[in-house]
């Protein structure tokens, strides 16, 4: 009995570690991007540098230097890049004119001049992305639940969800326009369709990663099917669900913006394609900058939520 329990715990650990390495793929990565230095804790154990870092005695001083290198080096490179851009190095190299590739100063000016409209359009696009993602992810999760509950037939539906994933968004845009009109609805629908598949596939994977021993344990407690789902499968799938949500933030922004290219009278995508058409390149670029900022914010919010919701998970413990 005791050894059975022990091995169950071990098995669980292995599964979680696997989940952790997958989830961690995006995790430590973000922290480097934000300039934080303590990536060591969250990194999967399989990575080589982690083993190296534990060894030397004068580690503290070195890691401080390393942290500076981590932050300063990319920032310096970015600053150099922008400076070269501003000084028209790229223009000379690629034989471009300033109206083709606007200078950073012009982009900043365009952003300042149109700040109000950019902000309200960014809000509009972000609303579309969030609404669509919420609907799409919810549907995807339900599909995954169904596919797990009835494996034989449900898995078939998963195949179609996966093939939806491969459908180009641009092909969806005109059809959704016909179905839902040119308002917000059509973009929400586009985003919902593009985000559904990733959630269905990831959540299904997470639910089926459940440790067989944990399932056996639930069985020996005479748990009902619903309880098994609630306590083992759904709870265990949460890291995968959040991985899918993080994928979906980007996909959602792309879906919303690309949808607005063709059918819209508002939003960042609309302003972007319109200002390109009338050769207002700086304004177009400022839309991209705005979209990037909105995308990063959206991602960070989801990541924050992830930290709150699965704090209990072994992959999050420090």
């Amino acid at each position, binding site marked *: 009995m005791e050894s059975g329990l022990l091995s169950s715990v071990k098995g669980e650990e292995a599964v979680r570690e696997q989940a952790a390495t997958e989830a961690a793929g995006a995790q430590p990565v973000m922290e480097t991007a934000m300039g934080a230095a303590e990536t060591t804790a969250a990194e999967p154990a399989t990575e080589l540098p982690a083993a190296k870092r534990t060894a030397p005695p004068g580690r503290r001083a070195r890691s401080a230097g390393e942290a500076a290198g981590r932050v300063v080096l990319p920032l310096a490179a970015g600053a150099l890049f922008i400076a070269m851009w501003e000084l028209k190095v790229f223009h000379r190299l690629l034989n471009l004119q300033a109206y083709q590739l606007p200078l950073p100063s012009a982009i900043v000016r365009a952003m300042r001049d149109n700040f109000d409209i950019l902000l309200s359009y960014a809000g509009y696009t972000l609303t579309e992305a969030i609404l669509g993602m919420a609907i799409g992810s919810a549907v995807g999760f339900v599909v995954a639940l169904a596919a797990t509950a009835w494996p034989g037939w449900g898995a078939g539906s998963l195949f179609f969800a996966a093939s939806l*994933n*491969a459908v180009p968004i641009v*092909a969806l845009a005109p059809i959704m326009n016909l179905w839902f009109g040119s308002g917000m609805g059509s973009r929400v629908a586009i985003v919902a369709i593009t985000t559904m598949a990733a959630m269905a596939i990831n959540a299904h994977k997470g639910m*089926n990663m459940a440790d067989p021993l944990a399932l056996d344990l639930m069985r020996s407690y005479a748990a009902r099917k619903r309880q098994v789902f609630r306590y083992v499968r759904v709870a265990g799938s949460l890291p995968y669900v959040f991985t899918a949500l993080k994928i979906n933030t980007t996909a959602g922004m792309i879906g919303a913006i690309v949808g607005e*290219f063709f059918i819209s009278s508002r939003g960042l995508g609309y302003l972007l394609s319109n200002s390109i058409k009338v050769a207002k390149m700086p304004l177009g*670029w400022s839309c991209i900058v705005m979209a990037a900022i909105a995308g990063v914010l959206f991602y960070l919010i989801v990541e924050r939520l992830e930290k709150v919701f699965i704090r209990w998970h072994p992959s999050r413990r420090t």
Partner: protein
Amino acid sequence: MKAQGRQVPVLVWGAALLMLWEAVSWFLLEWAEVPMAQSKLPYIHKVLATFGTYGGVLAAESRITFANAAGGFFLGAAAGALLAVLMSASKWAERLAFPYAVASQMIPILGLAPIVFGIVRDEEAARMLIAAYITFFPVALNMLRGLKSVSPAALELMRACAASPWSVYWKLRFPASLPGLFSGLKIAAPLAVTGAILVELMGASRGIGVMMLRNLYYGPSHVYMFWSTVIVGALLGIASYAIVSGLERIAAPWQPEFRTKGGGR
């Protein structure tokens, strides 16, 4: 036998979906009398008939799109793999490029399509560039993760055998990176097709996206043709994914999900 058992539900689902489509289309047209019913959901058999009639044209145009997307895809994949190797070999390169590669994952890249098209007026080059750009970062990030997934014990063994850096890469790191590389490629392949079609919609002269746009503008009389192009676009995306998955099976057949028995997940 087992494979057959798995395919039956898929086939039944497919048939059911097609029947549902046909029924809804009929309902919209004959019962609800929704305006532009056929544009919203045309009879699937008529779309398939159009497929038969104009199959040659559709194939020719989609070949152009696919060739451009594939060209860009290979360029981007090669560049991404190169960056991944660089980042795994040199700490400096990793520190320099990694944050940007990650940030680029959070940015709606396809939004760049009109801008790239504005800079590079040549439509073929623009299509390839967008496809390459979209492919570049997922491949670089995922392959880097693969290159780093080598077990420390194996590395120590290679060190103990005084293996040259070249043979460490060739015998240990490259094989270990293949699953990561392919998961990056699988993310990127449909996106590359999407990017190519998007550039065509922005204004090219040939390709499946151009046909899509033209038939959309011609209105209700070209509904079936429009839907055919949409389906072709979807098929191109699915085909690209299927091709990469097939290659993965050949190149890295040892992965757990390919096992038919034993080993668990």
